[in-house]
């Protein structure tokens, strides 16, 4: 009975990994395809679809905007998230509970509704497209920065901070010289997660992108809906995967697997 159970869970585990990684593998293999349309098994190897991707101004623009937006949004989200975490740790029990609920809310809140409410608001006050999109990306990334920093701060000995301040350092000096060096792995992991989330963000961006201001995921989505199955999409998708893989490797080097999985 027990052996049957073990065998069963091994089979299920194997099939789950195939289900999870299969679509990504298919995309990567397709991106290097030399043929005009999707073929399986692949017939050869070429980089023509990557060349095609970079020769399309719109796709190149979307890729650049996505990188810029993710850099900007994750940095702002990190500053705000660290501030939020500091204030939450320093608050009384009730205020701290309120702050935690408020700052974690965008994480579980259906992002479609968030996107729609922002769009409505922007239309109401006449917000420029790019600024509006950036605000949404900051909002979506903030919970990750908050959570990672907050977790680091909880194992941080506040008496160190008190010592610094009682020795005459200003709160800001104290933060920069004492707190930040000790909690930086949390801050960094929050920043990188915010980058990843912003780079793949779909639900709010669907409402908030406009003509000339399109991110890579939205460009891929639009292309799939209206132009059908050209393989340049596979190249675009493979670039998305490569970008995330790069960040994951950076993260592994900088903060280790354990912290990455925990946050």
């Amino acid at each position, binding site marked *: 009975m027990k052996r049957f159970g073990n065998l069963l869970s091994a089979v299920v585990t194997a099939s789950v990994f195939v289900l999870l990684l299969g679509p990504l593998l298919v995309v990567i293999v397709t991106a290097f395809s030399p043929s005009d349309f999707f073929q*399986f098994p692949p017939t050869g190897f070429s980089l023509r679809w990557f060349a095609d991707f970079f020769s399309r101004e719109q796709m190149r623009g979307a890729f650049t905007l996505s990188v810029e937006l993710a850099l900007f949004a994750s940095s702002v989200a990190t500053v705000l998230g660290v*501030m939020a975490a500091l204030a939450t740790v320093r608050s009384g029990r009730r205020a701290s509970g309120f702050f935690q609920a408020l700052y974690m809310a965008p994480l579980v809140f259906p992002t479609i509704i968030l996107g729609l409410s922002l769009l409505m608001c922007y239309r109401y006050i006449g917000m420029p497209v790019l600024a509006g999109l950036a605000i949404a990306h900051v909002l979506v990334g903030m919970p990750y920065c908050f959570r990672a920093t907050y977790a680091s701060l909880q194992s941080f000995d506040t008496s160190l901070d008190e010592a610094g301040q009682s020795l005459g350092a200003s709160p800001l000096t104290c933060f920069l010289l004492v707190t930040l060096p000790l909690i930086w792995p949390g801050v960094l992991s929050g920043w990188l997660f915010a980058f990843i989330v912003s780079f793949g963000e779909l639900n709010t961006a669907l409402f908030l992108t406009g003509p000339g201001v399109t991110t890579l995921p939205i460009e*891929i989505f639009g292309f799939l809906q209206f132009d059908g199955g050209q393989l340049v999409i596979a190249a675009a998708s493979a670039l998305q995967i490569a970008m995330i893989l790069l960040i994951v490797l950076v993260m592994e080097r900088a903060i280790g697997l354990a912290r990455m999985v925990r946050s």
Partner: protein
Amino acid sequence: MRVARPFYRRPFFWAVAAPPLLATLVCFVAPLLLLFYVSFMAPSSTQLFSHHATLANYVQSLSDRYMLLLIRRTLGVTAAVLGVCLLLGYPVALVLARMQPRRRLVTMMVLLFPLMISNVVRAYGWLEILGRNGVVNLVLVKLGWIRVPLRIVDSFEAVVIALLTILLPYMIISIANSLTAIDASLHEAAESLGANPWRAFWQVTWPLSSPGVASGMMLVFFLTLSAYVTIALLGGVQYKLLVSAVFDAVSTLQWPQAAALSFILLALALAAGAVIQLLLRPHRVQGKGRAQ
């Protein structure tokens, strides 16, 4: 949690606390309140909405046959996704919980990686697999099992498969976290007291893991409801869900209608969350049976 020590001087505390608080209130809470307000306003042909309070947006949505069909479909799809997620996710979580810490870490990373890739890329991957000229059809034709490619996309099954694989990691990791926290000696105690493995599982492991199961299910449910892109790509124009209706209302500029529909979606999410809590009652084991 540690007892907080409010030793910061007041002005400095507020200098740190105010910016994120203001940003969240202005950019997150205020727009939601506006959306809620608009959902009770009459539509207008010249502006976003006209300032006449009405319940018509909700009444119309909830009495429209097509909307009711979409709501039923949404519930059907989420129920299927949740069920299969649990069936596939639990065994994997068990395997994960039994691994050595180092191996578990690496495996969890492999599970987390697909989560970091944009949903549109993963949906595209499924289109290449399930589509008319996709992997499945090409292989089946080559094997001679079918002559004409099957039509798999634009259906309940395609949407469920794609959503399932997008959301499985959340379920697995959430269950695995609560499984690894269980004190292994409890299970041994049950077995040494004569319980067979199944009984030990049902009476010890399963109840103790229910907080993880509950939070995994809530996450999966919430994310399924708003996974528009996956649904649009694999369901096509034929197989729409409630979230597609929100989009259609926006693209035809029916703002109050879209607002009302999104709050119906939210109500659905909250109701489902309450049902999950009620069924699994995770709070009854909160903090019990933890490994030291």
